[in-house]
Each structure stands twice: as C-alpha cells, then as structure tokens.
C-alpha cells in the first residue's frame, strides 16, 4: 500500500504550513528518514523526512503553497505497489484524483457510502458556507483551524475565529520579489498596521543592575528584563491581554526578539516567571543559538504573552517596537549608557536605559501602561527586591 | 373477403334526394381525403413537413362511411394514420396542413404534428403515436357518455396490428361487460408496418376476436363506402340506444407504404397495382354514381378539393412558426399562471435553455426521414 506524506503539525497552534522547497522530486527513490521537502511556518523551517523507503510517486504543491496540517503533500509507493499508476509527471503539481491513497476508513454512513472520498491534495478544505462567511468577514482561511472531518474548516470554525486575530490585507498575495521567508512577517506587520497603538516611555536608571551584573556574571540585560517583566506581569495582568479572547494569557511566556542571518525571529522563554535569573539567561542563550542555526521548532516561537526587543547590542539608545498579535504589548529597551542626570539635586553621571512600552489601546489604557513601566523602572533601580 | 372488380350499387338506407345528397357527400369526403393525402405526400417529399407521415390512400371509404354517421359531439380516436379520420370528422384542411407544417396556427399549435393531430372541437380525440393507444380513450369516452347521461357514442379506428396488443383485448372486454356505446372500426389493410396479417395471426377474419368478448361484429368491404356507411349506421344506432358496443371489420388496403419513404420491401409492387386498380374506393364510387352525376360534377368536386388544399398550403406557408419559448408551457393546466408552482419551474427551465435555442426561419422546417 502506498504511504502518504502529510504536512506535519509542529506544535499545538500550528494550523498550516507552507512548502518552501522540494528536496526530492516525483520519480526519485527515497529512503526512510531522508529529507523530502522543506516547509515553513512563521519563520520556522523544517525538513519533512520520508516516512518510508520507496519511490516518491507523487508530490503536491510547489514553493509557496500552503497546506493544512494533516493534508497529503506526497505519496511514496512501496515495493510491489503500482507506482506507474500513481505518477502523474515528474514535476510537483497540484492535480489530484486518480491514484490517491484513500484516507483511513470510517464506519460507513447508513446511506451506503463507505468511507470518505479520497483526499484531494489541494490547499485548504472548507465547506462552501464556511468559505462564504470567511469572505464576508475578511478572514483568511489559512488562519482558521479546521475541526471538521479531514481538517475541513466549517462554519463554526470561522465563527469561532476572531476577525481580530489577523485582519486580512486587502491585497491578495505578496510582492513578487519578496523572499518566501519574509512572507510570515509581511503578513503579520500588515495586520498590525491598522491597530491603535500607543506608547509610554521612560529612561530607567540601571546602575544597580550594572553593578549586580558585574558582581554575579551570570546574566545580561535582556535576561534581567525578561525576568523582571515576567514577575511584574503576574500582577499587571492587563499588559498580558490576549487580543484573540480579550482575557489575559494564562501562562507567562516572554518573546525575545532575536536577529539572525535569516531575519527577525522571536523565540519564547516559556513560564519565565518561574525561572530564576540564571535560568532565564541560560534559556535565552540556548534559544539564540538555535535561532542563529535556524533550528527553532514550533512551540519555541509560539505562546508568548509579551515580548521584548533589545537594540542595546547594536549600540542604539531607543527602539519603539510593534506588538506581535495576539500579544497586546511589547517593551523596547535600548543600550545602557552613561548620561548626565540629576542626583540629589546635583549633576552626576548615571547609567541610563531608554525603555519604550508600545501597547494596543483597545485593551490597555495609558495609566496601566505607565504604572507597569514605572514598576519596571523601580525593579531596575532596586533589583534586589525581585531576586 | 374478395375484392371483386365490380361492386353492386348498394343503396344507402333512405333513398331519393336525401340519399343522393348523402352519397355525394360521401364521395366528396373521399375526394378531399385523397387530395389531402396526395398533397401531403408531395409536400413531405419537398421538405415542408417535419417528422413522420402515414398516408391512408386507399382507405378513404372507411373514414368517410364511418364519420358520416356521427354527430359533432360524438368522439373518435384515431391512429398514426389519421389524416382521413380527422378530415372526415370535420377539421378544416387549413388547420390540418398548418399543423403538419409545424405552424402556430395548426390545430395543435404545431405541437402534435401528423401523428398526434387532434381536434376536440369536433370530437376528434387525437391520432395516436402508440398502436392501440385509442382503445382506452374510446372506452373512457363511452363510459363518460353513460355517466353524463348523454347519447353520445365513441368510435375507435384501428388497424390489424393493434388487435394483437393487450389494450385491444382489455378494452373490448370492458366495453362489452359495461355495455358501453363504443364502436370498434377495424381498417384491416393486411399489413402492420412490414408484417402481413398472414404472418401475425392465425385467423383471417379479425372480427372473430370480437366474438370472444361477446361483441356483435360485422365484416364489410372497406372499399365500399356504402357498405361501411350501412354497417356503421347500425352500430351507431345500437350504441345510442344503449345496446352496447359493435365491432366492424373493414377489409381494405393501403396504397402507399407504412410511412412516406417506406421502401416497401415486404410486398410486391404488382400486388399494390392489382388491388388498387380493382378496388380504388373513389373510382368505384364514381362508377356507381356516374349514372346520376355528370363528369362535370366529378370534375368540380376534384377542383374544389384541390383549391381547398392549395388554400390550406398558402395559409400554412404564411403562418408563423410557434414561438420557441412555447416549448416550455402548455403542458400542465395552470402552467401559464405565474402564481402556479409549475409555472415557476417551467419559467426557470425556459430561462436556462432559451439563450441556446436555435432560431428557425419560417419555411425551413426540415423534413422527416
């Protein structure tokens, strides 16, 4: 019996993946474990391996095509299968029909139709009514998780999906020369563009942190920010509102923006409020390493309730970043530098870090935002209290 | 029953002036039928008539002799070979020719054609495309007359082939047991399409089958309009007075093939020539009446008939074809009423198909096979 290769589900929140590059083509002999195709989702790239050895009889989709998790993207004919019947042509194509492996049998309905019809490997399966509702609400089907049979998107799935989650751009498709890897960011930033964002800003005195850092040597600026923010978010629940539901995220994961050769990526320190400062530092280092290697997987870049962007390493004093929906706030911190300050009525030099808190004003007002930022500033001035 | 070369002059009951008038009327009907049928033959072969046409040349005496006994409100049901019956019952040539030419002015609005020609205004319940289709209609019309307490009668014309079909037997039996005012007029022309009676039945006189149902039967020379007339006069009187059904077998012959274009491989040309030269009903009637009527009189009859036909053709030619969207309506009672559910369904189908309907120029209707 031929073996189906499906779009994998890498992490709880993954709904679909995009083919970025076929590593093998129809007609190639493949061995179990050999990489077949590169797929991507939200900047994670992943190599899907052959689940069995045999002849790669059919591939579906080409660069940029999106498939729902669980949808077939290729078929491998095992020894003894009539591969000839399965091969359409050697180029990856989206023609479905004859030769497809049938989906697993379900108990037949009383109407006598035994089992569902063979899956067609085209894109996203959605009921006609769901498609129409999605059109009316400007919801991208690719963003909707289908819970019907074979991952079909049904009416209730579209109803449940908040239009707020990712309002679809009016234009269809991406700029033609846009690198495929930037598509996820393009989409995201386009969505953020319409949101009512506001900022509060302060220059935080960080002498105390600097001194602690030099004494202990087991953490750096970003880790302290993550550590402090995570603990503050326990009580400042507003600042960790989930835009999809309107309620605070239950778990406190902090996204840490990282710059990699492939571009911006935001790995997440999960449950940051339960980790010690040293543990946070270690986790950040670990994630950064994976990010640079392009080896982050699904859950490592998902599930944050708040993010931090630090341009200190680049020597820049100030950054005002954009929140990453469905998160509703983000903190940008700049380089800590010695600056003139007024200390006890007299001019002095104080190490200062400019912090900008950008927030989604639909969920968070200026006062709570300001309070949060003030609390962060206080934590930076007297880190001992948190530790 | 032999078709002898000469025919004794049979006086119709009621001699004298009235009888003579009736005789001439019989002749006139036969001449008109002949002219109509020969004209249809010509126009069919010229491509003016679509579909099929089945000529009754040679059988005119049966139609004329039968219908001369009927009132306008008596019913007849006919066969696929029904032009003679229709004309004899009282439909105009114009209405008939326009129908065959598929015009909106035809008696069936161009929707029936030769095989389904009907004229309810004169009690003609239709030619029938199904052999033996008329038996039930006549039984029903006769039953209806009884239920409505009228003295109307119903006549079923049919051929020898129809007597082998089930409905012949069922309906004769039903009319017999219920004593219905139905008259069964068999035009035994010895052929059912390509099969002769010798091949398709063991008996020679089909009237024996009527005996099996307890129906009184007569066998007459179907080329003798007077004989037919007399037999039907008796049958109609019996029916009208509540005496029940009668079976009249008319021995006759069709001079042309089963349909126009029939290569007639099942009989010899010589046979046709022999029979018709000996038995042409019009020739025989003219011979009998020649004692009383001048050649001019005959000439005038023929000329009038031809003029009538020519007028009918001109009428048909100048008539419009039906509107194409007529194909979708006129099926159900009420289907022209916008409030009727059937209308809406028909209108939707019309809207879906009309954009693709061919437009047919008047005059280019095409012909049958």
């Amino acid at each position, binding site marked *: 019996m031929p073996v189906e290769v499906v779009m994998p589900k890498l992490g709880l929140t993954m709904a679909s993946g995009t083919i970025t590059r076929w590593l093998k083509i129809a007609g190639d002999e493949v061995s179990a474990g050999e990489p077949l195709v590169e797929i991507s989702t939200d900047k994670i790239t992943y190599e899907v391996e052959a689940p069995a050895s045999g002849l790669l009889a059919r591939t579906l989709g080409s660069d940029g095509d999106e498939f729902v998790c669980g949808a077939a993207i290729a078929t491998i004919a095992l020894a003894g299968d009539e591969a000839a019947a399965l091969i359409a042509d050697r180029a990856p194509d989206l023609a479905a029909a004859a030769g497809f492996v049938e989906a697993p049998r379900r108990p037949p*309905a*009383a*109407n006598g139709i035994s089992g569902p019809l063979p899956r067609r490997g085209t894109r996203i399966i959605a*009921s*006609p*009514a*769901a*498609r*129409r509702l999605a059109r009316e609400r400007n919801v991208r089907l690719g963003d909707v998780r289908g819970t*019907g*049979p074979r991952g*079909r998107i*049904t*009416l209730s799935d579209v109803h449940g999906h908040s239009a707020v989650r990712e309002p679809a751009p009016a234009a269809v498709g991406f700029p033609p020369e846009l690198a495929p890897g930037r598509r996820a960011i393009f989409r995201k930033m386009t969505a953020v563009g319409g949101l009512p964002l506001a900022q509060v800003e302060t220059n935080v005195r960080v002498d105390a942190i600097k001194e602690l850092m030099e004494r202990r040597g087991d953490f750096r600026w970003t880790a302290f920010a993550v550590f402090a923010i995570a603990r503050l978010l326990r009580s400042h629940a507003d600042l960790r509102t989930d835009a999809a539901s309107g309620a605070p995220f239950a778990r406190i994961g902090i996204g840490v923006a990282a710059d990699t050769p492939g571009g911006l990526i935001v790995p997440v320190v999960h449950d940051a409020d339960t980790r010690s400062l040293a543990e946070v530092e270690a986790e950040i280092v670990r994630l950064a390493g994976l990010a640079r290697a392009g080896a982050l997987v699904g859950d490592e870049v998902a599930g944050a309730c708040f993010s931090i962007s630090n341009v200190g390493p680049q020597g820049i004093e100030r950054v005002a970043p954009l929140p990453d929906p469905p998160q509703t706030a983000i903190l940008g911190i700049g380089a800590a530098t010695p600056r003139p300050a007024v200390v006890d009525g007299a001019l002095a030099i104080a190490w200062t870090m400019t912090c900008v808190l950008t927030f989604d004003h639909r969920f968070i007002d200026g006062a709570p935002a300001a309070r949060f930022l003030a609390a962060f500033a206080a934590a930076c001035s007297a880190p001992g209290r948190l530790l | 029953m032999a078709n002898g070369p000469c025919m004794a002059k049979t006086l119709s009951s009621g001699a004298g002036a009235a009888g003579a008038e009736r005789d001439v009327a019989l002749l006139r009907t036969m001449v008109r039928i002949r002219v109509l049928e020969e004209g249809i033959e010509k126009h069919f072969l010229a491509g003016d008539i679509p579909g099929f046409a089945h000529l009754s040349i040679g059988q005119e005496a049966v139609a004329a002799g039968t219908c001369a006994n009927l009132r306008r409100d008596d019913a007849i*049901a006919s066969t696929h070979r029904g032009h003679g019956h229709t004309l004899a019952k009282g439909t105009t040539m114009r209405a008939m020719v326009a129908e065959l030419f598929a015009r909106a002015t*035809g*008696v*069936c*609005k161009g*929707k*029936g054609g030769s095989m*389904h020609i*009907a*004229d*309810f*205004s004169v009690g003609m*319940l*239709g030619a*029938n495309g*199904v052999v033996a*289709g008329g*038996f*039930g*209609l*006549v*039984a*029903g*019309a*006769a*039953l*209806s*007359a009884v*239920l*409505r307490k009228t003295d109307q009668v*119903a006549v079923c014309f049919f051929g020898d082939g129809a007597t082998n079909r*089930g*409905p012949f037997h*069922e*309906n004769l*039996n*039903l009319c017999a*047991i*219920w004593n219905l005012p139905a008259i069964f007029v068999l035009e035994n022309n010895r052929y059912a399409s390509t099969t002769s009676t010798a091949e398709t039945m063991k008996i020679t006189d089909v009237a024996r089958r009527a005996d099996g149902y307890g129906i009184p039967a007569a066998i007459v020379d179907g080329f003798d309009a007077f004989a037919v007339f007399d037999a039907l006069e008796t049958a109609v009187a019996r029916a009208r007075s509540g005496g029940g059904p009668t079976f009249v077998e008319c021995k006759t012959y069709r001079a042309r093939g089963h349909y126009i274009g029939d290569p007639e491989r099942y009989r010899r040309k010589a046979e046709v020539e022999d029979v018709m030269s000996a038995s042409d009903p019009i020739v025989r009637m003219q011979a009998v009446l020649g004692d009383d009527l001048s050649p001019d009189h005959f000439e005038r009859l023929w000329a009038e008939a031809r003029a009538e036909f020519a007028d009918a053709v001109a009428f048909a030619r100048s008539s419009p074809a039906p509107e194409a969207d007529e194909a979708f309506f*006129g*099926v159900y*009672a*009420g289907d022209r009423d916008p409030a*009727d*559910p*059937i209308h809406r369904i028909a209108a939707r189908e019309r809207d879906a198909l009309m954009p693709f309907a061919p437009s047919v120029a008047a005059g280019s209707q095409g012909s049958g096979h």
Partner: protein
Amino acid sequence: MHAATFSEATLEAMREEMRRDATVFLMGEDIAKQGGIFGQFKGLPEEFGFERVRDTPISEAALVGAGVGAALTGCRPVVDMHFADFITCSMDELVNQAAKLRAMFGEQCVVPMTLRAPDGITKSAGAQHSQSLESWFVHTPGLEVVVPADPEDAKGLLKAAIRSNNPTLYFEHKALFPVKGMVPDDDDFVIPIGKAKPMRDGADVTIVTYGITVTRALEAAALLEAEGIEVAVLNLRTVWPLDYDAIADAAARTHRIVVAHEAVRVGGVGAEIAAFLGEHCFDDLDGPVVRLGAAHVPVPFAPILQEAMYPKAPAIADAARRLARREL
C-alpha cells in the same frame, strides 16, 4: 379538527368530492363490493351507486386508458391501482397518453384524472407488492405526484388531486392506512399541490422527506433532541412539482441536509433534491447532502431481510447526528 385514520381520511375526501361534483367517479379492482382491501372505499357504492363506483376486471391498461378517455370528455375519474406495483401494467396509458395529450394537442384538453396507488414496504408482501415508484413519474413531464404523510395530508392532498385539472398520482403507503391523526372538519380543506410543510423546526440539521418517512424522521428527531441536536423536518407532500423554495430555505437555515425516502436511493427523488442543493444552494452547505433510501435490491420476503434494506428512524438519526457533529 377530528381524529381519523389515514384510511378514513381518504374516504372522507372521496365522499366530500363525490358529493360536491357529480362528474367524480371511482373505478378499480375490488373496490365496490369489497370496499377496498384497506376499507378505504367502504360505503361509497351505497351512497353514490355502482354506476359511479365500479369494480373492473383485472385490466389495468383498460382501467387507466378508460380513465384518461373519461377525463378527456368531461369526467373526473379516480382510478385505483390496488397496488402501485401494477402501474407497470398500464405504463403506456399513463406515460404516453395521460401525461402527454394536453401538451401534444396544444392545450385542447385537460386530463383531470387521479390515480390512487397504495405503495410501500409492509408485512413481507414481497418484491412485486412493496415498491415505491414515484420517481418514475416525477421524471415524466405532464404528471403531478403527491405523497401524503399522515391523515391530514391524506385528506387534503386527495381532494387537491381530484380537483386538479392535471393527471395526478396519489401514492398512499399501505402501512399508513391504520395510522390515526387529526384532520380538519372543513369540507373545503384542500392542501395546495406543490407546497411543502415544515413539521418541526431545528437549527442543526434538516431532514427533507415525504410519505411514511416523515414519521420515521420525526422519530429520529426526537431521539436526537435528547442528545441536544436540534433537527428540523420538512414534509414535501408533493414530489412533483417540488417545492424548491422550501428546500432552499432549509439549506439557508441549517446548512446541513439529510434527504430520506423509502424508495430506492439510486435515482430516487432524493437525487433530484441533492443535485438541486449542490447546484443552487452550494454556498449554504456546511457539509455534504446525505441521501437515505432503500438499497438497490428487490424487496425481499423474509422479515429479517425486508427490514434490513431500507432506512428507518435509527439510520436517519445516525445520518443526521453525524452530519450535525461534522463527522461527514
């Protein structure tokens, strides 16, 4: 309103219409002296005479043919087929004559004939006495076809059929004859041909059905109500002309449709309905249109075999449940 069995309801209709219109008469096998094998003609000859209520020989072709002839010439015949299966013995009279004369003759005549045909599976009657053949006649232009589901339908649709100027087939399920229901008192109560009746409302899935299957669908709906699934049931009443508007409305409301009938599923009326939904209500559908009907086999004799091959409430409920749960 008063209580009556299905059989009594048809008898009421016959009586009322025969009183109202002297041209209405009745003929068929074993109806006048016996009163019909389901008692559905009892008392009619006594009131209207044996002229208007006639027993015929076993001559279906003559029976239907004469019905057509009488209809053409001023009467309103009600022709009883005894069993719907015997319509086959009079197909020419029904299909080539009754259905087509008005059209072929350019509207010169009407054929106001009603053809009553007891049909359906019951009591091991076997393959030749158990069929539901309505789809043949839906497929024949020129005929109307009605299928009552309960005593109210039985009365209202029979009166409508008799009053209709079109040839109308009236399929009455044999197992429905003893079923009791409420029937309006008004002797002018006529159910319009071509209009469906919603029997039950529900938001999750609609069962579109007719005839005896309406009862089975309502049973299924009750089962599902206990499970929290809301089922609407639409009783078509007429299968030709179909109430396409009501069917489309069902799709617009619940987005999930089960079509069910006792007749063979393949090529049945359900097929026309499902095709219509797919073609004209596509965007309303949240799942496939599921059809239920008898298997494509002659109805077997042995009870255990007979009961296995057509859908009743459990099978209907299963389909509706799975569709509502988005398992299909």
